[in-house]
């Protein structure tokens, strides 16, 4: 630890600003969290339907390639040539029969095994690799991979339990409510760079308290409001969370009276953006899952999205939104999901608010890293609740974070 940081007195009720700003803390996070015993979101299986199809992305800070190496096999390798270390694959998507580094034409199989080294035996008996060069020891670094109902996960660590165990049974149930084994299809992508610490995005979705206040659009049209039947569930270690809520009607009551920005007279000129249909069993209309540390799995009315977090130093992260639909959905349903996407992303009626306030947060932390944020809404407990006026899931995440990072 660089500066002998100590956690504030009021342990669970405070989060010190240095967790968002200190470059040394960030480096430790990359090693202990992103490259530690955690599953990281890589992509959707349907993004690479055919053998040889690949997608490049970044896990933690490391570029990787997700490739369909066989009809029923997905491989994730680091996008780094074993020879001179180039990030050799520069495209976002494509199809290849092998993985080739252009610098010296080292060739790898789709599984990452080294299969070709030009001039390995030299030219005209001159030069070449030494006799002890072992191609089998010079493949691409391969990660452990699991596919779970259409989503591809990878981990750098040998210690990570199975993905289902990593979620825990309660969260496996939340996960399979939407990712139920049906085939998925991509509707498209949104990408934005948010100038704030990566944990702020996790916190944003672990915090239902803000959603009923900041997001006037949500509240005005009854999509997410503090008095609606709702719940916060967290896994046994506090790292994953889900916000569950039930859509209500547009109305005025004591909750809206507490909102200075509530606009009771607001109507939409074209309400098709809110043409919501109930498609999942049960009465919940919102299920926002945070899977620590890398992704948010969004089901907000009929909008289904993965939001991947790629950290970039303590003060920024890239945010990749993949909107999807079930492959067997009607064209009407696909259009409905596409329309509702207007609520989300960098220009979203709702999500633009989040990007902005995360930026404002980082602006407040940076010059004052010895100060601390208060997280005592709903008390100091870490527990599942049947209401949304709480920051319990944020407390849960920091409880786990401190254990992993060694900040007692």
């Amino acid at each position, binding site marked *: 630890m660089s500066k002998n940081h100590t956690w504030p007195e009021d342990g669970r009720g405070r989060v010190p600003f240095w967790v968002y700003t200190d470059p040394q803390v960030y480096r430790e996070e990359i090693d202990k969290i992103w490259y530690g015993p955690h599953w990281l979101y890589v992509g959707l299986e349907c993004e690479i339907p055919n053998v040889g199809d690949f997608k490049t992305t970044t896990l933690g800070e490391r570029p990787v390639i997700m490739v369909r190496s066989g009809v029923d096999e997905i491989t994730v390798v680091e996008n780094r040539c074993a020879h001179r270390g180039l990030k050799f694959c520069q495209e976002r998507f494509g199809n290849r029969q092998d993985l080739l580094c252009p610098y010296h034409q080292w060739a790898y199989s789709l599984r990452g095994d080294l299969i070709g080294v030009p001039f390995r035996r030299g030219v005209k008996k001159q030069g070449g690799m030494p006799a002890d060069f072992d191609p089998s020891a010079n493949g691409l670094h391969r990660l452990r991979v699991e596919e779970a109902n259409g989503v591809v996960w990878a981990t750098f660590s040998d210690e990570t339990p199975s993905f289902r165990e990593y979620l825990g049974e309660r969260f496996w149930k939340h996960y399979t409510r939407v990712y139920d084994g049906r085939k998925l299809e991509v509707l*498209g992508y949104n990408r934005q760079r948010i100038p704030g610490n990566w944990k702020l995005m996790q916190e944003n979705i672990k915090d239902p308290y803000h959603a009923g206040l900041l*997001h*006037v659009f949500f509240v005005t049209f009854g999509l997410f409001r503090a008095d609606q039947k709702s719940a916060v569930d967290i896994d046994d270690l506090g790292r994953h969370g889900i916000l569950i809520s039930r859509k209500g009607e547009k109305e005025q009551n004591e909750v809206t009276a507490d909102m200075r920005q509530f606009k009771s007279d607001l109507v939409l*000129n*074209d309400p098709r953006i809110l043409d919501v249909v109930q498609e999942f069993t049960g009465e919940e209309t919102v299920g926002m899952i945070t899977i620590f540390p890398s992704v948010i799995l969004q089901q907000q009315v009929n909008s289904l999205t993965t939001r991947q977090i790629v950290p970039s130093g303590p003060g920024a992260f890239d945010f990749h939104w993949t909107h999807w639909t079930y492959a067997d959905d009607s064209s009407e349903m696909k259009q409905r999901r596409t329309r509702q996407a207007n609520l989300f992303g960098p220009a979203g009626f709702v999500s633009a608010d989040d990007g902005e306030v995360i930026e404002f947060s980082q602006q407040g932390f940076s010059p004052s890293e010895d100060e601390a944020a208060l997280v005592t809404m709903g008390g100091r407990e870490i527990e599942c609740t049947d209401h949304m006026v709480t920051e319990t899931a944020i407390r849960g995440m920091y409880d786990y974070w401190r254990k992993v990072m060694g900040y007692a």
Partner: protein
Amino acid sequence: MHEAMECQGAAGAGLLNSREAIRDLFDDYYATLDAVDLEAWPNFFTEDCVYRVISRENYERGFSLATIGAESRGMLMDRVTGLRTTQVYAPRYYRRFAGPLKIGRGADGAVPVEHNLLLVQTLIDKQSEIILSARCYDSVVEVDGRLALERRDVVFDSEMIPNSLIYPA
């Protein structure tokens, strides 16, 4: 409010044949947005217009997802309502730099127009930065004696948006 556009063939195609009138339309359009006269913005469109700000990645791969997508003038008005009354964002200036118009041949009472667009954002205490670098694909029609956009696709190369896209392009 305009009635929905009906194809009129050659009749009433006077304005559509005028390159000057088409240039004026875009000059007015960008001046209106740069002045943040948001309430006037939807009036540049037909009643059942299609408006999209969409990444080149989605556009070229045929994905329907747009960063901003509207299927009527009403939806554009709702965007304005959001910007004026529900959304939270830091104050900023947007300035739009349009390249030369490539005006195509009209067919079915509509003229295709293409041009480049650079959208520059300036936040308080920050240096100016490029928010979008885009190619615009527009379809111009004449409704009630004036020109309007029946379709506008702003296809942006710059996939990684610097945080938020607040105002329209």
